């Protein structure tokens, strides 16, 4: 099997954008090619597009050929869209990785994005009813936003003693990391007091515990090692391992809301393929759609013991200089969360970290990790990246 490298990455501006979905995909594609001038649109033989709400909010299906056309890409190996809601981008990277590894494709652009802010603000929330089991969970008004995670937070607090302050610390850290990110939605620091006193969204989650609704796109280019050697002069960054696990979808079938078994399974597979343990990961971009998510993710990814996610952030272990720097580019809490774009944004940051050209570098990182959960904590996606030594 061939080795697969990530050789370029770029983003559109993220936020509440005065732009359509296709325009943002163009911006992201251009930024990606500008990131590595050694690769052009003529070198791309495949395109995988990641987007979840294109039919509902951009009134467009059959999206991949439209994006290919708008970026001057003529594909030969693959041209299709992948959807796994919040993990669409990471899923598309896994698909491209598999196709390149097996020889079906050589150089693939993976582009993901979302247009979530429409003239009617309610439209995005309304659409989220079809992102859970529509007929049996969505029909109760359960979309993606805070309800389920607020209950998870309460249960985690009861069971493990996690505090609202510890949750707020995730937000303070990620907002601080985000101030250097010119493409992110928010670039203001907040202090603990501001986070603690913010408007309640769904108790115990307050405004800064929740990521916003975001428009934006991002793109990366993956290539087989043989071609990557000619298409970049930077240190090669490899995809070392992947895992994607779903154990249930409907709320009635969840076994334990605070223990995310699917994430343990997905990450253990990814670590095993990469031949590493959680201790090797020095930088990670995890799915901080809510602050409590990041806390549980520390635990299930093996960065700390189960139940100790709260103290882990409180003691600075997930910050620069700690055991593993998490969400070094600001995460979803700062950058925002255009579903299809998020996993790709994470991949860009890890690539830059491992090449030593991030906005703020984690010292001596040889391995990095990205993680998303999607739906109502229904699926877990993990990728491990490593640089050549």
């Amino acid at each position: 099997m061939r080795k697969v490298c990530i050789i370029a990455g770029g983003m559109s501006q993220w936020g509440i954008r005065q732009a359509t979905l296709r325009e943002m995909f163009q911006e992201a594609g251009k930024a990606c090619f500008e990131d590595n001038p050694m690769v052009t649109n003529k070198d791309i033989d495949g395109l995988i597009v990641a987007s979840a709400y294109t039919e509902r909010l951009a009134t467009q299906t059959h999206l991949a050929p439209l994006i290919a056309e708008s970026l001057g890409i003529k594909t030969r190996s693959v041209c299709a869209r992948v959807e796994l809601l919040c993990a669409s981008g990471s899923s598309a990277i896994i698909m491209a990785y598999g196709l390149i590894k097996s020889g079906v494709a050589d150089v693939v652009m993976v582009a993901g994005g979302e247009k979530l802010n429409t003239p009617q603000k309610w439209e995005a929330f309304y659409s989220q009813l079809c992102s859970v089991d529509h007929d049996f969970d969505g029909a109760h008004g359960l979309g993606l936003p805070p309800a389920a995670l607020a209950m998870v937070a309460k249960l985690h607090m009861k069971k493990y003693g996690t505090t609202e302050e510890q949750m707020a610390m995730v937000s303070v850290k990620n907002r601080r990391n985000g101030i250097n990110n010119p493409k992110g939605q928010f670039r203001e620091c907040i202090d603990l007091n501001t986070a603690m006193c913010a408007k309640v969204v769904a108790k115990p989650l307050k405004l800064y515990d929740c990521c916003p609704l975001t428009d934006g796109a991002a793109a990366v280019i993956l290539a087989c090692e043989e071609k990557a050697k000619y298409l970049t002069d930077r240190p090669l960054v490899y995809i070392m391992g992947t895992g994607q696990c779903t154990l249930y979808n409907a709320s009635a079938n969840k076994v334990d809301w605070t223990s995310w078994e699917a994430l343990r399974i997905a990450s253990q597979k990814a670590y095993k393929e990469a031949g590493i343990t959680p201790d090797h990961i020095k930088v990670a971009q995890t799915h901080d759609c809510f602050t409590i998510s990041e806390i549980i993710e520390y635990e299930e990814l093996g960065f700390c013991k189960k139940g100790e996610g709260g103290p882990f952030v409180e003691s600075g272990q997930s910050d620069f200089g700690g055991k593993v720097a998490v969400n070094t580019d600001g995460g979803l809490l700062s950058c925002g969360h255009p579903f299809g774009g998020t996993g790709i944004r994470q991949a860009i940051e890890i690539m830059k970290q491992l090449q030593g050209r991030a906005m703020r570098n984690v010292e001596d990182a040889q391995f990095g990790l990205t993680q998303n959960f999607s739906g109502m904590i229904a699926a877990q996606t993990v990728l491990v990246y490593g640089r050549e030594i």
Partner: protein
Amino acid sequence: MRGISRLEGKYAVTMDLYPPQGKEFTRIQPFFDNLRQNRFTTTKCKKCGKLSYPPRVICPECLSEDLEWVDLPKEGTVVESVVEEIGVPIGFETPLVLAMVEIPGAFTFIVRIINCKPGALQAGDKVRLSVFEVEPFPAEFGRETVEIARVYFAFEPVDPEKRIN
């Protein structure tokens, strides 16, 4: 109960809040027929014994089609609840009360709590099934559009002190 008609003539709306119903559109119509009789039911596999929720037409465990409808308890216990103030999907009242409810001997799921006094619901409270009519399904049969009546359900506090009637 507000539905999609609120937006008629204002915006192109394609979201249907509720499941398709009517024997022409679903094979689990007994679930809805039973709701109408105030029964909370689901399917159980006669071959392997697996109780499925949502109800199925094929057992997800052993893939048998030999399933039977069984009654679930109509009363459950609140494990945790949340009052959603922001981002409530249109068509649902704000604040929206959702609770993780344990249905004894079956499962724990997230369900909407209606007829509940604001802030009254607590972990450990008993809640019970409450069935209501929702927007009909305007179905085309040839040149005719026939309205197929639909029902759905939520839970409500058992304690009359916590209930708005």
